[in-house]
């Protein structure tokens, strides 16, 4: 029997689960959600207990690692994605940060006028139930996603935390108790989607509310192999499940497989850069040069100082962060600066790291296929810290961090700089040691058809296709100056509106 759905959602990540819950609210709409990873129920404690977040990353089978080379020396770091229902929201640090107004202004400037801050504020509000600002006109109090700042700036904190905050304020940084304002800057209390110590992934916040609806079918451990396309329509979705190949038909197909696998599935289906597809022996059904291009991420560099004093810190998830501009002329804060817990090895000086997160990328990377095997991971070329402007911004932020901690009020906590070392060129150090903040975006960029890199229009429909939409981090024209999970949820919410409006 050939099954047929009104909507097939490919990928139960941050966007896909949100869209599945919203679209299945109408009992007349038959929705299928296919997820490549497992959907363990009840949730394992490693996933559900927010305090186990670092162990979840280090020990669980739910994190996919994509080896990514640094251009300067070919050394490798790993780009990451969640491979479990909830996607990134099931494995991330649970920061819940809105895109800055500047980010949405930039998306509008890329030819997407429907994505302005004013038009999207109602969507951002309907997502959340903000525990700290329920009455603010900026915030929502009835949405599915629980948002709370476990630490607020007026709370007592550790001696080190207080010294860090006081020093930042003395350098002129403002206090920013609500990070989710249009233009956050300064010492910011970090909001999290953690409720009573439990992770509020999109599985918990969204999908669990819709499970049991007779019009919603969920199939986990069902990686999609390709889409069967005839003319400008997707006729069927091919996926594997229980070791067998299956096909399923749908009127509308929403691709939410994430920044790495959405372009992979498109290319495997013949939708992508013609020359790339021909190289792989894949028949071109819709040439779209932008598929897999325009990749951007946030580069992280660690500076490590001696730690003169032992403090028993009980945290791994940071309570606050600084949002700073590497140059006062910047239109918005372009760095997160976060103090990290000490590393201690017997016989060695205690190490006190501070991480610097560049929230933009001037140049672009790409995601491409090394083979036409759908089981192979796509390759990631990040190219972070390859543009001189980004290296300059990073070294400026490194100088700021030195000014911050090399002050008498901080001497008890931060001693001399260990890394980079005295012989290191800071720009080279940053290029040779950076890692990812795991906010890859942009590989199916949203923009008008006259932009040769645009893959979807501002209504998220793939250019040249009648019934194929994309909703995940891949559609972002530029990476937000924020952790990207909440923006992905927002994209899933918008997609549900757009698919409803499409009839």
């Amino acid at each position: 029997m050939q099954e047929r759905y009104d909507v097939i959602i490919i990928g139960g990540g941050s966007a896909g689960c949100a869209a599945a819950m919203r679209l299945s609210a109408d009992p007349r709409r038959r929705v299928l959600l296919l997820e490549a990873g497992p959907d363990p129920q009840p949730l394992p404690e490693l996933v559900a207990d927010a305090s186990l977040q670092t162990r979840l990353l280090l020990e669980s089978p739910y994190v996919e690692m994509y080896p990514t080379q640094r251009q300067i020396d070919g050394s490798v770091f790993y780009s990451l994605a969640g491979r479990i229902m909830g996607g990134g929201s099931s494995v991330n640090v649970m920061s819940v940060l809105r895109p800055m107004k500047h980010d949405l202004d930039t998306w509008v400037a890329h030819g997407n006028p429907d994505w302005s801050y004013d038009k999207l504020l109602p969507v951002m509000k309907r997502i959340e139930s903000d525990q700290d600002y329920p009455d603010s006109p900026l915030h929502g109090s009835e949405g599915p996603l629980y948002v709370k700042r476990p630490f607020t700036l007026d709370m007592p904190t550790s001696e080190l935390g207080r010294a860090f905050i006081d020093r930042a304020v003395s350098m002129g940084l403002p206090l920013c108790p609500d990070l989710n304002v249009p233009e956050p800057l300064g010492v910011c209390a970090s909001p999290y989607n953690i409720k009573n110590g439990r992770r509020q992934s999109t599985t918990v916040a969204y999908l669990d509310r819709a499970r049991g609806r007779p019009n919603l079918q969920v199939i986990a451990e069902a990686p999609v192999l390709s889409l069967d396309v005839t003319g400008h329509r997707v006729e069927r979705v091919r996926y594997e499940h229980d070791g067998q190949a299956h096909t399923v038909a749908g009127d509308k197909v929403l691709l939410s497989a994430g920044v790495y696998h959405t372009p992979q599935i498109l290319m495997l289906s013949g939708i992508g850069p013609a020359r790339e597809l021909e190289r792989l022996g894949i028949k071109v059904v819709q040439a779209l040069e932008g598929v897999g291009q325009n990749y951007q991420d946030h580069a992280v560099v660690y500076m490590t100082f001696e730690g003169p004093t032992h403090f028993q810190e009980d945290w791994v998830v940071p309570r606050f962060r600084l949002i700073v501009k590497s140059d006062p002329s910047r239109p918005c804060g372009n760095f997160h600066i976060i103090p990290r817990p000490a590393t201690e090895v017997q016989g060695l000086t205690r190490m006190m790291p501070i991480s610097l997160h560049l929230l933009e990328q001037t140049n672009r990377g790409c995601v491409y296929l090394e083979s036409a095997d759908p089981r192979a991971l796509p390759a990631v070329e990040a190219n972070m810290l390859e543009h001189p402007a980004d290296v300059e911004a990073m070294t400026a932020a490194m100088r700021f961090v030195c000014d911050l901690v090399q002050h008498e009020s901080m001497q008890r906590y931060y001693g001399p700089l260990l890394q980079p070392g005295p012989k290191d060129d800071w720009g080279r150090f940053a290029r040779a040691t950076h890692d990812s903040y795991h906010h890859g975006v942009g590989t199916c960029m949203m923009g008008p058809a006259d932009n040769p890199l645009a893959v979807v229009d501002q209504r998220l429909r793939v250019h040249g296709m009648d019934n194929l939409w994309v909703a995940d981090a891949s559609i972002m024209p530029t990476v937000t100056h924020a952790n990207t999970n909440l923006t992905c949820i927002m994209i899933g919410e918008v997609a549900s509106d757009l698919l409803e409006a499409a009839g």
Partner: protein
Amino acid sequence: MNFEDRITVKAPADRVWAFLLDPNCIAACMPGVQNVTQIDDRTFDAAIAASVGPISGKFSFRAHIVESNPPTEMAAEIEGVDSVTKSPLRAHVAMTLQPLGAAETALAYRATVQVKGRLAILGEMVLRATATLMLEEATRRLRAQLEGTDPGK
């Protein structure tokens, strides 16, 4: 992760060579090392304990001299796993000795450290600073022992 440096030691090259060949001497140069067990004259097992914030773990490893061309070139392999993520870590250390007169030797090393598995997520962020400090401390101890009064130790 790659590391390289060149240091000078106020000791003749043959003495530096003999020191590097002795697993007990090398183990004594590694900070935080525990449970040293010599397997043969070129191999020893040991462990190093470390903590990152509230998470503590132990790295158990085997160090083995794989190449020696006395008294100028030597290469060692270090292989082990960490106790938290069971991730394999492998290091290759190549060393060259160059006599600088009768009583001084230049020691150059090049180390390549590869972390596979989940521990690689911490990668440069935590492991690099630790590895750098370890190498610095190891060369400091090596110097102290070779330039001290206790011959061979």
